[in-house]
């Protein structure tokens, strides 16, 4: 596979951004054998990192590139950076949600040969990125075929509203993201548990949800609550749990392999 690292000026954020992209390599595309370029549109997976991470996390801490190669699937993996901002349009700060929802796909489709069809568009992430992925899929269900959350922080507003107790050193940061009014956060655009209701009531075709979490993860309870609510609303949701597993890359490495292997994409 080919690994691309891009640096450019983001219009939405107003400063430089980096994206990492994995594309099929010339051998996989049989460029030498065909003696011609392959300009077919690729199935795309938008893959989001967790808190403290950036666009390089998935390539640094998992075997993602090898998994894509071994799957022999024609896919592009696009990895943006959301730092610690919960992929949110911040109350005080920057529009990270608009960035990953609008700008990143627009750039990916403009610069590369990437399918614009919802059935070829997938999103996934771990922890904070699981939250970002689910938020994308529930806000714009018509854009994504599947969403996968690994150890996702699926009740971010619930956590943010307890941050004074859980991690007081992050309180100011969370206030910048979610705003100072704790009540107003509930039922808002960042409230994923609420977005489950909104998407279900929208009448739109809902993306398939895959949700994985370890039973020893500090987000385990939140994941159970999300699962139960989604199932009660009739979502097509596959739940996977692993005994005694915490919040860890070993788990995300095996989960991203499973994701690549089940992703519907044309074979090479």
């Amino acid at each position: 596979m080919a690994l691309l690292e891009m640096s450019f000026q983001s219009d939405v954020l107003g400063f430089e951004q980096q994206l990492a992209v994995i594309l099929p390599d010339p051998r996989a595309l049989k460029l030498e054998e065909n003696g011609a370029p392959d300009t077919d549109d690729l199935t795309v997976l938008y893959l989001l990192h967790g808190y403290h991470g950036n666009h390089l996390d998935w390539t640094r801490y998992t075997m993602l590139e090898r998994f894509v190669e071994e799957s022999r699937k024609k896919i592009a993996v696009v990895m943006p950076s959301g730092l610690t901002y919960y992929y949110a349009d911040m109350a005080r700060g920057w529009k990270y949600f608009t960035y990953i929802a609008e700008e990143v796909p627009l750039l990916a489709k403009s610069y590369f040969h990437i399918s614009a069809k919802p059935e070829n568009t997938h999103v996934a992430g771990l922890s904070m990125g699981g939250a970002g992925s689910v938020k994308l899929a529930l806000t714009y269900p018509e854009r994504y075929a599947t969403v996968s959350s690994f150890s996702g922080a699926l009740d971010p507003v619930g956590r943010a509203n307890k941050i004074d107790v859980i991690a007081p050193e992050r309180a100011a940061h969370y206030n910048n993201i979610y705003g100072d009014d704790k009540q107003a956060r509930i039922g808002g655009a960042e409230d994923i548990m609420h977005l489950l209701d909104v998407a279900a009531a929208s009448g739109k075709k809902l993306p398939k949800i895959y949700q994985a979490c370890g039973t020893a993860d500090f987000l385990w309870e939140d994941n159970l609550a999300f699962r139960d609510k989604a199932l009660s609303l009739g979502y097509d949701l596959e739940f996977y749990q692993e005994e005694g597993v915490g919040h860890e890359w070993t788990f995300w490495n095996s989960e991203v392999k499973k994701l690549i292997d089940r992703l519907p994409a044309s074979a090479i």
Partner: protein
Amino acid sequence: MLVKINYLSQILDEQVTFHAILPEPRIMKIYESGEPVTKDLPVLYLLHGYRGGPSDWQRKTGVEQFLHEAMKHMIIIIPGGYNFWYTNMVQGKRYFDLIADELPRVVQSYFHVSQKKEDTYVAGLSMGGYGAMKLALTYPERYGYAASFSGAVDPFAMKELDDIVDPKMLDMRLAMEKEQDWIFGPKEGRAGSANDTMALLDKIDPAVCPKLYVSCGTQDDLYEGNCAFRDKALAKGVDITFYEQGSTGHEWRFWNAEIEKVIKHWLP
């Protein structure tokens, strides 16, 4: 926008790194309609010199800024040629085929790039100027424009070893001689071969020859070779622009000014 790309080459059977400079999203007017901009762009292949690499142009000139200021919708591709003279080695790998065949196929597969002659440009400095001329004269049907700055365009008419006074230059030259034996084969077979740009110029049909731009400093060791190339091109009736600059040797300051000129004014 700067993109760094790593992939496994089919032709070399080893990892290859190249850089791509693309117009920033705002220059591409990606935001104006909200739709992806997928128009095929003209492409400039830009080759580095001896002892250089794919990051040379980026690090030592303002090439990205020049593209930005020119407001041109154009992609610049900067491959790595190591010390291999963009040549299929007599004993070794096919660095000419890499740049001539594989790289364009990869670039056309990954990005939205025109395959038309009039949209395909090649340029380089020193060894890369030689590479640019060799590509243009070997495959005139593929390139619309080709530029050489301080190029080794008369590659087999280098200074006699006895004429080199500087001991450091002599060491470098001796190492180069050894490499050239592996690359070009024995000295006596080089003149008139497919690697002899002067011989290629002899055979070129001026009606199909790409537009050429050749520049050199008058203090450069390669100045005489450049004059010889110019004279032969003019005698053949090839469309060539020649520029010489006084008090100028083999130096980045000159190449910085030249690439600015070529991007902004010489290329369409």
